[in-house]
């Protein structure tokens, strides 16, 4: 019997190695797997490269990993969001590296890896500072820059419901980066509010199909 549910968040993040690239889903504070980020902190992996839209909030989750010096590099589109003091201090101390990318370039690079493609040409950032150093090609009279696929060793996903196969549903705008990050990592770990019986999720409503999911853990009130 396939059962991807694990008992604890520690089980969920077990085996994450130093130097891993970790895809951290969410937009601002919405749709972020904070329990898994805390578990990753406990687990102790270091020298992490984090791919996220923002750079963490307050002193929990991603911010806590940064405060503890576990993060070597952040790839994101908008670090200046909410209380990002943990990131700001590390940035000013030059203890971590920032790679700034346009938001749609981050998501498309991950989708590209998930799709088994070797990269794509995008008009976004062509002729700007963020496009400098990238291969440029004129396509139909318009400048494009070459973007490589972006792969995660681990993805930390926040969903609403899962079944034991790992089919996932989300709530409203908490979907955001979760489905694309779930597709783009070697190990996709999901925290959910609730497990349901196989067959209980409306097949039309499954936003991440089980094939992309490796481990599921229940957090919050239902845990």
């Amino acid at each position, binding site marked *: 019997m396939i059962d991807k549910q694990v008992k604890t968040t520690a089980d969920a993040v077990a085996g994450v190695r130093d130097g891993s690239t970790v895809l951290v889903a969410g937009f601002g504070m919405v749709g972020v797997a904070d329990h898994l980020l805390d578990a990753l902190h406990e687990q102790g992996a270091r020298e992490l490269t984090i791919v996220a839209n923002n750079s963490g909030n307050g002193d929990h989750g991603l911010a806590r990993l940064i405060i503890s010096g576990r993060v070597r590099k952040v790839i994101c589109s908008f670090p200046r969001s909410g209380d990002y003091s943990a990131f700001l201090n590390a940035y000013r101390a030059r203890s971590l590296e920032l790679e700034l990318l346009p938001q*749609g370039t981050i*998501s*498309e690079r991950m989708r590209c890896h998930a799709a088994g493609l070797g990269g794509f040409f995008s008009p976004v950032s062509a002729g700007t500072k963020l496009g400098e150093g990238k291969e440029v090609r004129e396509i139909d009279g318009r400048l494009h820059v070459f973007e490589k696929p972006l792969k995660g060793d681990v993805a930390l996903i926040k969903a609403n419901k899962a079944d034991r196969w790992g089919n996932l549903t989300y709530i409203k705008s908490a979907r955001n980066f979760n489905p694309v990050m779930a597709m783009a990592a070697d190990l996709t770990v999901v925290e959910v509010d609730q497990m349901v019986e196989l067959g209980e999720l409306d097949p039309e409503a499954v936003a991440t199909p089980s094939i992309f999911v490796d481990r599921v853990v229940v957090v919050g009130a239902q845990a």
Partner: protein
Amino acid sequence: MIPLTREQMAWRAAQDLMEGDYVNLGIGIPTLAASFVPAGREVIFHSENGILGMGPKPEPGKEDPYMVDAGKNKTTLVAGGCFVHHADSFLIIRGGHLDVSLLGAFEVSENGDLANWTTEDPAFPPGVGGAMDLAVGARAIRVIMDHTGKRGEPRILKRCSYPLTAPNCVKRIYTNLAVIDVTPQGLTVAEMIAGMTLEKLQALTEPSLRLAPDWQVLAPPEVPKARAA
């Protein structure tokens, strides 16, 4: 001669949103435009974090933790609205599916170059978010901005001084003094506020302006009436 308020600028930009348009509104003044779409026109708003059919701000006490806009403020969904994931949301933005992207700006150049993502303040990390995607993808890129900076310096320039968001993208500029179109013939003034002359406007603008033969007075309501949610 009274420059437009933020609400009046947003109102003016909203008059150009047409029935059936799919529109992304940037953070700041552009966001206000949603309230001033003329009654009877159905316009569908997109938010970069995967909302198609975004509604107005929620009433106090009705905030939904799962509903935020691009600025991470609480928002709502209209009937008919739906959600997409981030890669599809930016496919919508990048792929030319939006009719209008209405953005804020620090500077715009005479050929429509846009600078709206960084002032290169060394004390803070830069952030680009969806700005570069929004500046290349929509069928029409329009900008709302104060005509001049805090010290009266022009912000419509021959060449932008800040790093570009995208070259050659802006088609129309709504300022607190005028509505200006970026055309192959140069910047063309479509509207000016009452009492403004081309000479006076030119003094506040670096590149050459020409006046459209059919130019009009830019005269929004004194206090634009927001549409009921």
